């Protein structure tokens, strides 16, 4: 919120930025930001407009090329995010349109005894189909809300979505390739690549134990339809619980390897300081003394349908609702406060769609008096973790799960 106090703190330069913000809020305000958090950088707000790319509803543009687009918040009123509204995130700008007929998947590597190549028809026909409801969230979701700001794509709250993913189990495909006992990681590559040959291709790896989890898929359907181009057509890796960086889009290569993969996107990117986040999953072959690859998502929630400064007529009920999610332990409860965190009431949870899915929550209160209210939601998971009140700052801007605070007024 560009509160008066903050504008004053920013001084003259801040006032100029605030004028820009005011203009921008007039243009697209409620669609482009979640209320109740620190502001995005002024530049991010100035360029964060609703724009349409082929096959999508208008999304919040962060960058054009490579394309990075965020979902407008109102779509999280439902537990499943429509394919046409699902966020788009690419690192590199050379993105081919892959055709289903010509696509093939190369499965092999030094730790595979029987490498082979699959067509899309073979992937669908030769392996039993499995389906999982799972949240795909960019590691850097909410990066733009970090204070102090850090560099990167300055996401608001919606570089995320929840879908029903259907595909072959990665473990079945790896079994057919005759994975050897010395395999420690599975290396994933997709059809998209860099503009310049010297730029490291976006290649990721996951530990074998996660690759052979029964929920890890090579997905060819999303919410009952083929994947949209921008979400990885014709097939992408789905790693339920883990952040989106591992969910390789347009996947073309799956390689079993006997030692840690040391490409740029593993060795230098997507790393978090060790021991500062309440995560359980470890990626031991990639750990160093200082840091470790990001793994599962931290527990989080988002309030949907209440805007900052909203005026609520006295005597009228206020429904605080939204979605909660975590890294696969499952949501145990969501507590809601309307008095800035003094008193908390447990919200009613919606249907359980599985431990990797969004879980909806709702609580209706009738504020007893006129005046200012601060609405908050705080999710907890079955592993005993809860959202934080203070940001755990880290250089790359990952794992922001600070409790939202939306100021409203009963009039």
């Amino acid at each position, binding site marked *: 919120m560009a509160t008066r106090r903050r504008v004053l703190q920013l001084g003259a330069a*801040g006032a100029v930025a605030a004028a820009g913000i005011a203009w921008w809020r007039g243009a697209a305000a409620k669609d482009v930001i979640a209320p109740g958090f620190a502001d995005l950088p002024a*530049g*991010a707000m100035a360029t964060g407009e609703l724009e349409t790319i082929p096959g999508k509803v208008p999304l919040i543009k962060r960058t054009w090329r490579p394309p990075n687009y965020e979902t407008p918040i109102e779509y999280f009123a439902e537990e499943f995010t429509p394919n046409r509204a699902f966020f788009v995130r690419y690192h590199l700008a050379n993105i081919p*349109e892959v055709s289903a007929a010509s696509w093939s998947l190369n499965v092999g590597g030094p730790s595979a005894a029987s490498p082979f190549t699959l067509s899309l028809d073979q992937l669908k026909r030769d392996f039993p189909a499995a389906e999982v409801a799972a949240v795909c969230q960019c590691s850097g979701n909410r990066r733009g809300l970090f204070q102090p*700001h850090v560099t990167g794509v300055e996401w608001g709250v919606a570089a995320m979505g929840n879908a029903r993913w259907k595909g072959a189990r990665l473990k079945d495909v790896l079994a057919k390739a005759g994975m050897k006992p010395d395999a420690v990681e599975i290396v994933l590559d997709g059809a998209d690549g860099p503009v310049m040959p010297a730029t490291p291709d976006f290649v990721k790896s996951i530990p074998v134990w996660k690759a052979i989890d029964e929920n890890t898929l090579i997905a060819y359907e999303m919410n009952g339809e083929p994947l949209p181009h921008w979400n990885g057509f014709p097939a992408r890796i789905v790693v339920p619980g883990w952040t989106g960086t591992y969910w390789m889009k347009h996947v073309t290569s799956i390689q079993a390897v006997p030692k840690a993969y040391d490409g740029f996107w593993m060795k230098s990117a997507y790393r978090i300081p060790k021991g500062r986040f309440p995560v359980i999953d470890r990626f031991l072959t990639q750990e160093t003394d200082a840091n470790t690859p990001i793994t599962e998502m931290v527990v989080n929630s988002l309030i949907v349908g209440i805007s900052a400064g909203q005026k609520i007529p006295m005597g009228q009920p206020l429904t605080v609702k939204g979605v909660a999610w975590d890294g696969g332990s499952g949501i145990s409860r969501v507590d809601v406060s309307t008095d800035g965190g003094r008193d908390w009431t447990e919200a009613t949870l919606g249907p359980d769609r599985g431990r990797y899915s969004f879980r909806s929550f709702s609580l209706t209160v009738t504020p007893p008096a006129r005046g200012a209210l601060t609405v908050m939601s705080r999710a907890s998971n079955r592993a005993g973790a809860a959202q934080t009140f203070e940001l755990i700052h880290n250089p790359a801007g990952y794992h922001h799960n600070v409790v939202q605070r939306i100021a409203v007024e009963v009039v």
Partner: protein
Amino acid sequence: MTTRNVIVGVLALAVGAGAAFAQEKRIAFKDGPGLQTFQANCGTCHSLDYAILNSPFLDRAGWDASVKKMINAFGAPISADDAKVITDYLAENYGKPS
């Protein structure tokens, strides 16, 4: 990317890229020394809204680190002279207010 596994929809890509580049021209960048060097070098690999997006919170050292990351980590073929011009332009026009 393993190109042999992929057929590129050449026409679709060309049309898509044309549309993307047309959109990108909507940005009015602050005029100043180095603007053309910034546009010519940085715009090869990514749209220039990345710079505005990451503003105005980086000081000169921050922009210097960002430009160096593009060269050293991402292989951008930018000369040392151009890198300095770009850093100066970004720090001056999209830097943290001092």
